[in-house]
């Protein structure tokens, strides 16, 4: 161990320090001032996010168990920003509902340890670290999903999540064990050298992929998603759909493009089928939803299908578009969830019909929502358009024109249900609209950041070029 390796693991160590600091804080903050823990956590995490922007060297430590490079570091920063925005958006909810029950600090501890798990997962240099990171990223979220202990639906979400996640990682583990049998190592770099395509390896890969497909909620492993999103507190649903999914996609991409690259002829076929199924089924179910959280759940399933279009390319272009899209997706989905959260907190309303006439009472919220939904739908000039266009380009670059065609048809279907929400907000009128309210500062800040992100990420091209440069490692 040297100072250098500490520097490499800066993000992890800093987050762990914040975690411990919060535990200590929990002991020393007097009971009547518990709400200050929200400010403390936000402040600390803000610093952590800012510090993350300092550069990092490419290297690996602990005998290759932990590796990092600029792309991974960049993605950690993206996750940080996502979590920061999420915390800003849910600060009021935590103040009002969670701190009151004296569970505020634990909320942050669980959230941060889950984020820590994601760090380890995407920095993993072997399957063990990957597995542990995955579990560390998942288990605390199950606790968070069940956080509203007095609500039955919340507990159900928690148990459904933890059982499906356990099942998924069990299957993935069996796959890893078979992969270990054929390659003799759990280290990525060693596996990469010896992996060859034979039946057992393919079986191992399919099992392993199944496990990850659960996390990204790809069809046919998506059935838990809507229930869990609906039951969980909105911040947790948002976290699941944005941060969790983003990290899982990222690690899947890294694995597919490096370790499992020799199996490309296998996985491109699998992804082809799953991409079509995921987009189509996600869309078809989203069409029928009345509840905003379920609606966003299915919409995020469909979005995952689009992401696969970048993965199928298997090139640097594919990697760049995937990372770029995930980044945009984080902002877009956070905008949508943020508005849902703001409204739910003030009025408790979560159905699409409740949004009727929202623009006339709360124009700013509606505009943020519109930006988010347009970005998800891929309407220019907001960022989602660029993200989707590039994903399609990546798939087309390998000649998958038919897949792109299916995807654009699906994009049009998805536009339909996004427009349903926009119709409710802008066109419909309601006798009992959601009255005007003014959000608190944190929420406003959180929504503002997402709105700016959605507007800027697409038009500001150097960002994409930077990502493209970073993905040069997949050359």
């Amino acid at each position: 161990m040297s100072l250098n390796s500490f520097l490499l693991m800066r993000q992890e160590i800093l987050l762990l320090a914040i975690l411990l600091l919060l535990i200590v804080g929990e002991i020393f903050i007097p009971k009547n001032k518990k709400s200050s823990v929200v400010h403390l956590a936000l402040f600390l995490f803000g610093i952590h996010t800012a510090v993350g922007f300092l550069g990092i060297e490419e290297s690996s430590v602990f005998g290759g168990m932990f590796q990092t490079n600029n792309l991974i570091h960049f993605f950690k920063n993206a996750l940080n920003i996502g979590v920061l925005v999420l915390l800003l958006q849910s600060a009021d909810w935590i103040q009002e509902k969670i701190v009151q029950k004296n569970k505020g600090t634990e909320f942050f501890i669980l959230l941060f340890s889950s984020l820590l798990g994601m760090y380890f997962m995407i920095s993993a240099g072997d399957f063990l670290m990957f597995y542990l990171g995955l579990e560390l990223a998942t288990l605390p979220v199950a606790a968070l999903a069940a956080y509203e202990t007095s609500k039955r639906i919340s507990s159900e979400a928690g148990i459904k999540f933890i059982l499906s996640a356990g099942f998924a990682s069990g299957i993935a583990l069996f796959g890893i064990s078979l992969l270990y049998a054929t390659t003799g190592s759990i280290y990525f770099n060693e596996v990469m050298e010896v992996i060859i395509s034979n039946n057992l390896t393919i079986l191992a890969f399919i099992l392993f992929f199944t496990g990850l497909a659960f996390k990204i909620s790809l069809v046919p492993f998506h059935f838990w998603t809507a229930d869990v999103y609906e039951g969980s507190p909105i911040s947790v649903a948002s976290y699941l759909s944005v941060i969790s999914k983003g990290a899982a996609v990222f690690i899947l991409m890294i694995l597919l493009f490096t370790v499992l690259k020799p199996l490309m002829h296998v996985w491109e076929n699998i992804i082809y089928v799953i991409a079509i199924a995921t987009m189509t089924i996600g869309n078809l179910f989203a069409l029928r939803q009345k509840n905003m959280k379920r609606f966003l759940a299915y919409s995020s399933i469909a979005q995952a299908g689009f992401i696969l279009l970048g993965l199928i390319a298997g090139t640097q272009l594919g990697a760049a578009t995937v990372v770029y899209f995930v980044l945009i997706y984080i902002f877009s989905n956070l905008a949508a969830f943020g508005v849902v959260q703001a409204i739910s907190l003030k009025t408790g309303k979560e159905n699409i019909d409740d949004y009727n006439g929202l623009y006339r009472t709360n124009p700013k919220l509606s505009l943020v929502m519109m930006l988010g939904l347009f970005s998800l739908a891929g309407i220019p000039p907001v960022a989602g358009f660029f993200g989707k266009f590039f994903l399609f380009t990546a798939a087309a670059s390998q000649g998958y024109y038919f897949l792109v065609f299916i995807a654009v048809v699906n994009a049009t279907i998805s536009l339909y249900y996004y427009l349903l929400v926009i119709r409710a907000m802008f066109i419909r009128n309601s006798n009992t609209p959601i009255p005007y309210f003014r959000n608190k500062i944190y929420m406003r800040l959180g929504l503002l950041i997402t709105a700016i992100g959605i507007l800027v990420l697409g038009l500001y091209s150097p960002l994409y070029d930077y990502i493209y440069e970073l993905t040069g490692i997949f050359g």
Partner: protein
Amino acid sequence: MIAGISIYEILTLTSILFFIGVYGFITRKNLISILISLELILNASAVNFVIINKYLFPENLQGVFFSIFIIAVAAAETALAVAIIINLYRQISSVEVEDTEVMKY
């Protein structure tokens, strides 16, 4: 190494265990039973790691370590799941899956 037993036989055993777990996970209607099925799946994988390590790659202990960590994770997972189940039970006095489905697909 177990004298007279080839790796194929042990892999057969773990595969059977794995599928019994999968079967239980899908057909059982009770949250705790589902948890039990999950343990079977995890155990199948853990045994796999150990015997592959022993039979094929005895020079280092990666598989053994992997299964130790699997056991630890299983413990954490179970503890959390049990906590949630108990909390759920406090609200609905049942752990049957049917009773938990206020949410429809």
